[in-house]
């Protein structure tokens, strides 16, 4: 609306007439009174003319604003009669729909269950529910363990048989037949175990849902409360190398964050079974489980950054380990990891790639849908220790290079992770400081220093940016170092952290 209207007014008596003629821009929204002062000053008019001028300008502004707003309204109406706008009935339907939307509470059954669970787990009976969950995962873990043992012994037996056959100098054909039979048998065994584990999980899931709906854990002794204190395990076996810091970020308003540097295997971190199974007592509960379950549908989620390659599955490397950890307990709230990954692979990935090739470059050959370094996919979990959300950040070999900059796709991927974390109330996050999960020979101490420095600095920058994203502040950020890092190196990187994040000075009394 950069429209200007002409304003005209005659002031003063017959012997001294002043004709004011000014363009008035509606867009500037200037206060008419101030405009009148400017006119009086710039044209050296007598001050007694100000009130009249001011008043007329005020009226003029009101009127021209009124007219300027009404004109487009008339055009809209014209569009309706000339059928340029949607048909009257469609518009009516739109408004009716709006009205209904406002009245309805959009609540899916998933949301309902979440609410149910959330209030249950925060109630007096909550502990019993957690024990049930823990009991479930122990059962599954037991079965998984037995499967492992059975498969091992089976394989050993088969190997012995095969060795015997070879030593008895059987023909090649016989040996081949034997080995293919062995393979078949082992596949059968795998399938059997798999199906019994799945059956157990399904049964647990059914039971669990029933329990949550009912709001009571059957058989839970009402006296459970008394045993609460001893029932909850104390924090145990913290990683050997760890150090915590408190920092304040922000130029004027300081925001407090906790930082922690630890050396650990990130997958290991979220595995309940890796925590010392201190007590096999049926009342014992790992404290992490309580924490994780209480916050599951809360507003302070925990996340973990996991480095993966460009294939969405869990068949190799850390992905296999991670898949293992997930399969060791029933996923009682979300789809199983395999299903989540399949959904990403089959639904989201094609969409992403289509979007990326927009507009499709004609000369590039049609590639298969693939993730690129820096891409992130997210899975949700309820059966991991201290982790609700896992960010899978795609990396390639370029992260091993000694010179990555702040514009490297994986670093930008970290920024996206932090942004999602901020917008989705994930207030605790663990991420691999060196962007590699294991230290190898090639990665020297100097390399580690350089890498740590750039990641520290970039993360600091992202955290400072975070205040403008309008979400939750990061409470705790945990930098994870490879488990096989030397103590000297750990100390060097721990010393670097406060120098970059400027660890806050303690408050001092006078």
């Amino acid at each position: 609306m950069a429209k200007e209207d002409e304003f005209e007014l005659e002031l003063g008596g017959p012997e001294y007439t002043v004709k004011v003629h000014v363009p008035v821009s509606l867009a500037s929204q200037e206060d008419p009174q101030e405009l009148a002062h400017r006119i009086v000053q710039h044209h050296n008019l007598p001050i007694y003319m100000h009130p009249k001028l001011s008043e007329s300008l005020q009226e003029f502004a009101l009127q021209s604003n009124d007219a300027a707003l009404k004109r487009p309204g008339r055009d809209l109406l014209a569009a309706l009669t000339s059928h340029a706008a949607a048909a009257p009935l469609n518009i009516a339907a739109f408004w009716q729909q709006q009205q209904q939307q406002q009245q309805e509470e959009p609540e899916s059954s998933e949301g309902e269950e979440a609410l149910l669970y959330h209030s249950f787990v925060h109630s007096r009976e909550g502990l019993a529910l957690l024990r049930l969950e823990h009991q479930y995962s122990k059962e599954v873990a037991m079965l998984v363990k037995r499967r492992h043992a059975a498969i091992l012994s089976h394989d050993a037996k088969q190997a012995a048989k095969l060795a015997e056959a070879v030593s008895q100098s059987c023909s090649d054909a016989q040996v081949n037949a034997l080995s293919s039979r062995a393979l078949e048998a082992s596949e059968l065994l795998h399938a059997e175990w798999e199906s019994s584990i799945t059956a157990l999980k399904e049964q647990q899931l059914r039971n669990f849902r029933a329990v949550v709906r009912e709001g009571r854990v059957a058989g839970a002794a009402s006296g459970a409360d008394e045993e609460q204190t001893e029932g909850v395990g104390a924090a145990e076996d913290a990683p050997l190398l760890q150090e915590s810091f408190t920092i304040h970020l922000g130029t004027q308003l300081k925001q407090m964050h906790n930082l922690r540097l630890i050396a650990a295997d990130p997958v290991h971190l979220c595995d309940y079974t890796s925590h010392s199974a201190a007590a096999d007592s049926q009342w014992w509960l790992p404290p992490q489980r309580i924490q994780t379950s209480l916050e599951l549908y809360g507003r302070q989620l925990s996340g973990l950054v996991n480095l993966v390659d460009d294939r969405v599955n869990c068949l190799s490397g850390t992905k296999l380990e991670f898949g293992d950890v997930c399969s060791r307990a029933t996923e009682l709230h979300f789809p199983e990891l395999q299903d989540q990954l399949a959904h990403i692979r089959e639904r989201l990935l094609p969409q992403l790639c289509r979007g990326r090739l927009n507009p499709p470059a004609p000369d590039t050959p049609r590639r298969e849908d693939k993730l690129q370094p820096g891409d992130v996919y997210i899975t949700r979990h309820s059966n991991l220790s201290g982790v609700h959300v896992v960010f899978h950040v795609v990396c390639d070999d370029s992260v091993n290079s000694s010179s990555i900059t702040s514009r490297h796709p994986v670093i930008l991927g970290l920024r996206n992770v932090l942004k999602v974390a901020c917008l989705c109330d994930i207030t605790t996050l663990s991420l691999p400081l060196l962007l590699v999960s294991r230290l190898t020979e090639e990665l020297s101490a100097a390399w580690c220093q350089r890498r740590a420095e750039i990641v520290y600095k970039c993360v600091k920058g992202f955290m400072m940016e975070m205040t403008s994203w309008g979400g939750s502040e990061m409470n705790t950020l945990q930098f994870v170092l490879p488990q096989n890092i030397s103590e000297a190196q750990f100390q060097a990187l721990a010393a670097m952290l406060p120098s970059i994040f400027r660890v806050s000075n303690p408050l001092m009394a006078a």
Partner: protein
Amino acid sequence: MIGLSNDTLGYASLGASTFLASAHPSESCGSNGLPLTPNSVRILGRSQLLYTVSHPHLCSYVSIQRGKHERLIVVQEFYKCDLLAAWNNHQEFQTEKRLIQVMHEVMQGLVYLNKLGISCCCNLCPRNLLIDPYGKAKMNGYGLYYMTEQGTAVSFPIGNEFSAPEVLIAGACPELRPAGGGGNPSSDVWSLALMFLSLILPTQTKSGHKEPLEISVATVLLMASKSDHDDLASAIIDQKPQLLEKFEMLSAATQDLLRSCLKFDPTSRPSPIDLLSHPAFAGLTLTAPVDPQPRPFPRCTIASPRKAFPPMDEMLSNYPLPDDCMTLNHDGVKTGIGGLRERSMREVYHLWQLAGGQAEQELVRHGFIISRPPILVKSSSEDTEARKLPLVIREKDVEYQFHRIILFHRLLRAYPYYRSRIVADAHMDIPPYHRGEVWAALLGVDGDTISTYAEIDKVTPTSTDRQIEVDIPRCHQYDELLSSPRAHQKFTRLLKAWVVSHPGLVYWQGLDSLTAPFLYLNFNNEALAYACLTAFIKKYLHKFFLRDNSAVIQEYLAKFCHLVAFHDPLLFSHLASIGFVPELYAIPWFLTMYTHVFPLSQIFHVWDTLLLHPASLALCVAAAILRHLRHQLLDFSFNDCILLFSDMPDINIEQVVKDSVDLHLETPVSLLYRHHAPPSSDRDTEQHLSGPLNDLSSITLAEQRSEICGRISGADVVRLSEALPGSLLVVDTRPQHLFQTGSLMNAWNAPGELWMREGDSPSEDGGPQLVLEQAKLRAVGKMAVVVMGTKAAHHLTLQVCEQLVEAGVARVCLLHGGVDVFQASGHLVVPSPGAS
């Protein structure tokens, strides 16, 4: 008829509502390359104007807050009875006369809003038209369309089945939406008339029950798209002839009013302002002026005593009053208004928040709620214990704040007459609720601030515009209000106004930070913010904004050094030895009076105290900051120090402020003398500072900078030794024979040569070491160590001072003008023999 102030809580409840602003597409940037301001922040900035709305037919806005994830929460005056309920329950609301009256009342509200710059509400409907216990109409939710920038900052359309056709089309067809949003002043007129029509032509259900005539969106649009009729009223009657009879029973004026208000074409439909004098409203008078009145400071008018609430029997029968008004007292009479209900809504809400109330939590708990503030019992005496608690706690204490707010409310009304009382009470603390105006009072803002500000040209481009534009998006942007586009506009206007009206001075970076606290506290009263800024700079930053301000700043920093050397010689020596001079860190402290260094919440506390003291307190604040970081600074190398101050660590600001006041008290006035200090307005001190004993104006800047000690005036020495005998150690460095001719009472003669002797062979009267040791002993517990010599041997006196400071003797200062100043004043006495 209603004598209540519009913002008194009275019988109102407070209603909360919430909505989400639409999110920007991820990672989008503005034309200046900066990230886009979130829509919730834009809305928050615009919504501030709504706080100024004060009209009997408009529900006041009490609070507009921003939650996480682009949520906004609006708290507004609320009544449990809306127009439809009144129509259903009270026969009189079904009559033409009563409905015309309601229409007239709403029309006044609309004219008021139009004049304020809110051209359209867009969401008028019976639900948003509340009826107060006395049957007066009160519009609710009228600011939504305005604050969301004509609905562009939210993802839902604003409107309902009573909206004008242009609003309905614009909402449903975004591609046709004009820049102005489609709504215009006459859209509200349509909604109002349509409500009237549906209520005055009700339909009878089979059970004999009356229901408002239903006119669907589809009907309206279909009729609008055909061009058989110009207005909806005729079209409807044409379609339903059975309504004709009822319609014709209405007075001719009303029929005409409805026909013209329901014109399909907005350009031929009248606006609210055209309608106030419509014949249908003949005989009705305005309830209140329809011109928004700015809130002047000082008030200049004596408020008429508040009239009593109308008696309860004038209320509508069976009106759903808030629970606490319904309780019966001992005599079985309804209690009605009392206690907190006599205070303003915003005050009550403020207290409710202090008591732990959170609108967002209430909303979470209920989905939607009508929250009634917890009622406090007025205690008979102020809680004196509370005064001793730390400031941050006192600011959160409901009961304490309740008393403070009422006290300051009364004092401020009587400003400027009661300025001295305000100053006295501000010494205790300043309630955050009234901080903006209390500061204005402390700064002595007076006169017609509104006109003064209005006269300043804030539009014509100047050469500083570019710099201002660059600085504003970097100024206290962590604060959501100050980061909104509306705040940026106001910043620009304030800064331009200041630059234009101070021709001798220029814009220096930092002026933006200085403006921030005043803008934050007086967001809806730019004129007052401007007046405060001007007064503040005049008093605290005199000459700092000269084009060449180097002399002023140099002198200021030199004084700062003297102050540090005076109070903490050890720290001074350490910083001097590593070369960490105040030029490197303290300029932004002083140039912005700490506004660039601390967040707003801390600035408020620093300035609460600063405004009560002379300009020299600012120096002491800096010294107090150093004192707080002393332990670290003493250990730190140059690089560490630079790092420490490049990002000010979080410090206990209340303690710093307290210490700075103590430091100020412990520092002789003349030590803080600055050549460029603002001319004192106080006539007593003016007189005081003239005369040979007082006059310090002969010190040059070069001397100030090169000397490590500050100079004390003869008058200060006399005053201190008279007021507190024995509080001074006067070191007379003249040779003994001169000393014998006369010196100050109790002066200690330590001739300059003693200090200078090379080597430390202990001779008869001791070497430099011995003198120093003696000096240290004698200096213990003294308020000041005054070193004096002859004017001619100034260098010698100076060297003695340097030695004392280096040795860590605190509170060393140098007598300005030497012993010579006392020659004519008669303060010199001949020392009794034996005194050395």
